[in-house]
């Protein structure tokens, strides 16, 4: 019933709502976690400081945009060595490249509550196209939440140099689990 009401309301108002109303990310309820296999064991951590500029409306996906900026100096991990190592020259080289950035260039509805967004991910000095698959777990006039996952290969970005290129030690595939909760 609510969906019908919203649809009618949107049909009646041809104004592009999406452009007018940017979402404000809620820091405490948003998170970016990563998981990677180290010596055969899933090891994970979290990027604790990031911002997201979001313009999103499921009925005008072509107007929707997201720009996520991660401060790579703020990483936490179960094994403190992971967080310490990631900042070093062989990994993210935070002194040289302090941030990672994802800028969307297209959303796509996959059916139901499932969507994908492709965009340009920049890590170190490499920029590549990656896809974040997400579920729109909540969406109403004031509140929205997405839960998504991106799978990428660290070696594509030169993350893990020298002996760390060895994928039998640290797998190349990295799972990024993203939760963004926003209000407007």
């Amino acid at each position, binding site marked *: 019933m609510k969906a019908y009401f919203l649809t009618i309301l949107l049909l009646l108002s041809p104004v592009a709502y999406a452009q007018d109303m940017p979402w404000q990310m809620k820091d405490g309820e948003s998170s970016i976690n990563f998981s990677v296999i180290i*010596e055969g*064991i899933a090891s994970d951590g979290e990027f604790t400081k990031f911002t997201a500029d979001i313009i999103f409306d499921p009925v005008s996906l072509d107007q929707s945009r997201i720009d996520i900026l991660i401060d790579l100096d703020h990483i936490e991990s*179960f094994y403190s*060595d992971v967080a310490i190592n990631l900042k070093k020259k062989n990994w993210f080289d935070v002194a040289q490249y302090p941030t990672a950035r994802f800028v969307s260039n297209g959303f796509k509805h996959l059916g139901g509550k499932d969507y994908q967004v492709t965009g340009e991910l920049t890590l170190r000095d490499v920029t590549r196209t990656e896809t974040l698959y997400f579920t729109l777990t909540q969406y109403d006039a004031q509140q929205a939440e997405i839960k998504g996952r991106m799978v990428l290969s660290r070696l594509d970005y030169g993350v893990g140099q020298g*002996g760390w290129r060895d994928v039998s030690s640290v797998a190349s595939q990295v799972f990024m689990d993203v939760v963004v909760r926003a209000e407007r």
Partner: protein
Amino acid sequence: MDVKNTDNSYGIIAKLFHNIMFVIILGMIFLGKYMHGLPSDTPEQMLYKMSWYNDHKSFGILILVLVVFRLGWRMANPVPKAPDSMSKIEILSAHAMHMLLYIIMFVQPLFGWLMSSYGGHPVKFFGLELPALADKDKAMSEFFHEAHEITAIILLLAFIVHAAAALFHYTFRRDGVFERMSFRTKKPD
């Protein structure tokens, strides 16, 4: 020397439990400190570090098994009586210290196991993978990491007091309390 405890002395089994666990536990405290500070700047360093963690986990489980059997053995045996020269307060504090040592010997490896399980890391007993005690939970893992370190410090302090008391009995009291847990005989007066 008796296998079982008597009213005057601990038996061979109790002494073996005591001395073997003393060596393992003291080694484990220093290994824990050492391995925690090891670098892992290269895959080789990381593997080396992880191998010590695996050894630490194996011996931790061994301690957990030993302390259960040791407590069982203690309950199935008489505990040697304290000499009449000891005051009530002294006997009470000795018992309290022994109880504390048993509690820590049990919870110390258990906290380590919980810390690993909550962190999603397997615990192997010399290669044999043991079940996880809990589902992954970062906050709980951090809690038990802290607890594991704090109990290690308490254990080390308790051990120092315990050993100092034993040496006090050996050198000053000369009441045979030290020799009850020793493979030596009491020094003649």
